[in-house]
């Protein structure tokens, strides 16, 4: 039986080392971002956010137009666009192309979209060898684990974990010095880059007026993935389209600063088509797989459509006090943190993990740092309403629904409210000068018990405000 959401949360909270790792890593990323976007560093920050939101809104609202423009330009540059309605179609395309080329070794740069569609599993099943080349993703691949965080995938691992994984899977001596571990990976992966038949990347942006795929990274593995093999396939969600190359002047200023606090990542590649006549190196074939996989369904909802504006910076994860406690692996899908909490129910259905939209205090820290101004708390509230409607349809949660119906009736009838409140106060222990650790049996309801599991309850005052007011 796979662990439930609550179980995974509990396990993560109980692991003191993991708590420290998550807290420290996210704290550092928050700090870096703060220094990169403060007025002295980026005076236009708020204006850029507004612009970015407006551009995304426009692109998404006219997505069909921009997809077609993108496709025309990719084609004009000698590339090919493939539309994949779901994970199977995307993987089928890669498999067919690999077969056509007699390809076996595939290098991959970091792409959440390819994890979303379980591409590696599918490729490996057909005797292809997909190798993750981003250091964090490579380690995870060897360890058969999912990423922990959108931008820092191996955030939960220590150098000792990495030493064990490398020793076990690569047959190298147990080495705990991080720089040496990195050099080991470098040496192994260098051979893969140079021998690979196909390179698969994601795309941070798809530029409609240029037919270009934009990939940002710090290591150089994406450049190698997209330059060394003869074939480059970029797989990206349809929502990644932006109208113009010039719009990158807005997005690139926000992405790295929001993600890691860098002004720009070390490498930003703007790739349009296979190598041109006269160019010396680069792929001979260039494909872009435009993945739907449920995105078109999200588009239909005007209020929640903004969930597709995400540029995957990870800032919402870093600032979320809930993520900082429960970590990335508690989430049911590949996308974690606040953005994961709003897109997972929309992609997989609200009843896949009905608790997910409720695993938030709605503090709004995410919305405050989102470079494209997605109103995450608003979408969470909408999803909560959808969960309750779905529960009603499925005949679940009857007791809670009834309780709230009763509650609403009482709250609309002031005299009933006063009587109910007085009755509740009379249940409280008589001698109650201090905060309470326990309650009498009559008050022992699940929400009260849940509250008391973590903190004390306030004593009931002898008189309510309105009673005091009347006696003034």
């Amino acid at each position, binding site marked *: 039986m796979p662990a439930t959401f609550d179980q995974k949360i509990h396990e993560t909270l109980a692991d003191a080392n993991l708590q420290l790792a998550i807290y420290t890593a996210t704290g550092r990323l928050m700090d870096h971002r703060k220094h990169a976007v403060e007025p002295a560093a980026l005076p236009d920050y708020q204006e850029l956010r507004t612009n970015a939101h407006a551009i995304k809104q426009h692109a998404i609202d006219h997505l069909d137009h921009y997809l077609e423009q993108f496709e025309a330009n990719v084609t004009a540059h000698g590339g090919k666009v493939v539309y994949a309605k779901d994970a199977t179609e995307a993987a089928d395309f890669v498999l067919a192309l690999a077969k056509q080329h007699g390809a076996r070794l595939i290098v991959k740069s970091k792409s959440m979209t390819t994890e979303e569609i379980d591409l590696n599993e599918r490729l490996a099943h057909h005797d292809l060898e997909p190798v993750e080349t981003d250091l964090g993703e490579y380690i995870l691949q060897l360890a058969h684990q999912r990423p922990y965080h959108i931008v820092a995938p191996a955030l939960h691992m220590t150098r000792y974990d990495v030493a064990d994984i490398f020793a076990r899977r690569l047959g190298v001596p147990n080495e705990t010095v991080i720089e040496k571990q990195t050099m080991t990976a470098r040496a192994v992966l260098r051979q893969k880059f140079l021998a690979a038949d196909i390179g698969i990347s994601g795309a941070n942006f798809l530029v409609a007026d240029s037919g270009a795929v934009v990939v940002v990274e710090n290591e150089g593995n994406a450049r190698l993935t997209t330059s060394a093999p003869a074939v480059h396939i970029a797989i990206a969600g349809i929502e990644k389209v932006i109208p113009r190359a010039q719009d990158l002047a807005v997005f690139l200023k926000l992405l790295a600063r929001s993600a890691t606090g860098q002004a720009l990542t070390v490498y930003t590649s703007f790739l349009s088509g296979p190598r041109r006549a006269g160019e010396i190196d680069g792929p001979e074939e260039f494909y872009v797989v435009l993945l739907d996989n449920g995105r078109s369904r999200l588009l239909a909802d005007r209020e929640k459509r903004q969930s597709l504006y995400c540029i995957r910076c990870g800032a919402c994860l870093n600032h979320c006090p809930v993520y900082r406690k429960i970590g990335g692996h508690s989430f049911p899908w590949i996308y974690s943190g606040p953005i994961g909490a709003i897109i997972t129910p929309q992609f997989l259905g609200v009843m896949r993990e009905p608790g997910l939209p409720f695993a938030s205090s709605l503090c709004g820290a995410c919305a*405050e740092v989102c470079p494209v101004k997605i109103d995450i708390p608003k979408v969470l509230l909408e999803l909560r309403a959808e969960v309750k409607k779905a529960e009603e349809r499925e005949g679940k949660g009857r007791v809670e629904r009834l309780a709230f119906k009763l509650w609403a009736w009482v709250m609309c009838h002031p005299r009933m409210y006063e009587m109910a409140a007085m009755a509740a106060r009379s249940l409280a222990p008589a001698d109650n000068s201090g905060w309470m650790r326990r309650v009498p049996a009559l008050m022992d309801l699940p929400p009260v018990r849940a509250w008391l599991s973590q903190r004390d309850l306030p004593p009931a005052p002898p*008189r309510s*405000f309105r009673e005091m007011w009347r006696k003034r």
Partner: protein
Amino acid sequence: MPKRVALFVTCIVDQLFPKVGMAMAEVLERLGYQVDFPEDQTCCGQPAFNTGYRPEARQVARHFLKVFRDAEYIVVPSGSCTSMIVHHFEDLFHNDSDGVAAARTLAPRVFEFSRFLLEVAGADDVGARLDEVVTYHDSCHALREFGIQDGPRRLLAHVRGLELREMDAATECCGFGGTFSVKFPEVSGGMARTKIDSIVRTGARTVVAVDCSCLMQIQGAMSRAGLPLATMHLAEVLASR
């Protein structure tokens, strides 16, 4: 002729922290306002809205609109309740044009307490005195939905005898979040404990905030941890003499 304000004390203050309501009234009267308490008030509907029960929240919101329809100013000792009324009532009534109109007419008249003092009453010194070392917790809704951050600190700065020590992570959520506190108690409790660590590091003896739900969460966790620290709503601090 003194101006009139209507108090919306909120259900949590009414039932659990009535002194906060009394303190709020006292400060407003000190500033020359005539304070009304429309007796039919109950709740803003946030618990139902927060939990996904929009029809139920709508019913309660309608009742609220009726009770406060004629009030010129409505003062609220809570950022989250003010946010519910000012930002979310419209969401509840999106198919009901009368409801939307009523919500829109009401919204500009509803003020969180500290904002009322500073922006309407124009007062940052209310003649308060409290010999105490305090720290201030930025309640999320007040902070992020209304930009309430400098305001309470300005008001506290004028309280004679008061020393304010800033905690690191003052703007981090205390972990209450309404139903979140009981649906995900372990996470909520963890967030409260992180907040308390921050509080303890200041050496302050009292935590001040503009929202009783935050104070209930923080005080409840401090009590459980056996810490001899107290909480006070901003209104209570300002009412002190």
